[in-house]
């Protein structure tokens, strides 16, 4: 072995050129094989995550808005329903009151008519009774004047009349 240090030998400058060329070649190969596709994939993933987050946020906001809208609609519906019920109750009450009133009025007028009828019948009955009594009195008087009657006769006569009356 030659006893010289390697530093005193010719500097292998070719190595430097070779190393740099090799490194640059490796860079180009890695760019097409690994770095380019990986960067694309990473960017695509980052984009996707961003988009997903954005759309999730949007969907959440939409859902919240929808819930608020539905709640509002529900409250309105409830209010309308209670309004309808109140109106229905009121009209039912009004109707029943009106019905009662007419019924009362009718009953009252019927009663009045019935009273008037009764009065009239009474008057008529009285007047016919008066007429009957007068006629009877006249008949009795005429019968009395026809005969002077004994006590027995009178009794029998009265009985006869009473029988007459009974028959009538």
């Amino acid at each position, binding site marked *: 072995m030659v006893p010289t240090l*390697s530093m005193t030998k010719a500097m292998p*400058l*070719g*190595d430097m050129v070779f190393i740099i060329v090799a490194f640059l070649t490796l860079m180009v*190969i890695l*760019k097409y094989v690994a770095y380019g596709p990986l960067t694309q994939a990473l960017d695509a993933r980052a984009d996707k995550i961003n988009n997903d987050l954005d759309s999730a946020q949007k969907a959440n906001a939409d859902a919240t808005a929808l819930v608020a809208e539905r709640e509002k609609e529900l409250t309105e519906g409830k209010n309308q329903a209670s309004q309808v019920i109140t109106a229905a109750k009121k009209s039912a009450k009004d109707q029943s009151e009106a019905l009662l009133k007419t019924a009362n009025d009718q009953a009252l007028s019927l009663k009045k008519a019935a009273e008037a009828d009764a009065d009239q019948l009474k008057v008529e009955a009285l007047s016919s009774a008066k007429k009957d009594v007068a006629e009877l009195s006249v008949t009795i008087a005429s019968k009395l004047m026809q005969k002077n009657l004994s006590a027995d006769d009178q009794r029998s006569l009265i009985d006869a009349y009473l029988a007459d009356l009974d028959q009538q």
Partner: protein
Amino acid sequence: MDEPTSTFTFLGLTFNWTTIISTLVAMSIVVLVAVLMTRKVAVRPSRGQNAIEYVLDFVRGILGDQLPANLARQFGLYAFTLFMFLIVANEMGLLLQVKMGNGVTYVKSPTADPLFAFTLAIMSLMLAHGTGVKALGFGGYLKGMLFKPYIAMFPLNLVEQFTNFLTLALRLFGNIFAGELMLNLLASLAWGTHLNGFWIVLAFPLEIAWQGFSLLIGGIQAYVFVMLTAVFTAQLSGNE
């Protein structure tokens, strides 16, 4: 460093077979891993894609901590390639070292070669300085690099730029080289001649432990190299 090397000359430049073969092996492993892990790239990742995405995310995290978003994006591919390449290159020598009969180690960690580490450091720093010029203009770049916070700091700043380069390269080289040196020493310890057999029993667990440690070191150095590249880029482009 006084190991024999096998070199050849092409177009007046000297090439070292060890560097070329080791670099090509590391590159092939990186490409193979990348291809296998990204066979079907989808928005919903498979297991392999998940793993390599984790690496990409990790590198992006390093850049994002130091650089503004647009610069971090521009440097993404460079840093990703650098990290993948360095981690494979750093760990490769732990598993595979091919030493031929003529004493030349043809396959080892390429980063255990100082020239390799210096070349990568030069490349990274050239990118950092270029980014600085592009971001601040040549005057602004010089001012930011050399005359901050005030002009009197010029000598120190100049030294700092030089040491930046040296530390970037030597930290990587030193760690990986020392790791492999230790591995080789432990391996040669195992084949010690006296007390035959005993040294294997001693060296085997030590070798395992040191390989585990070097695995950690290799990962850390890949991380540190990428991070320092980002830090220097941030400093030189006024994004401290």
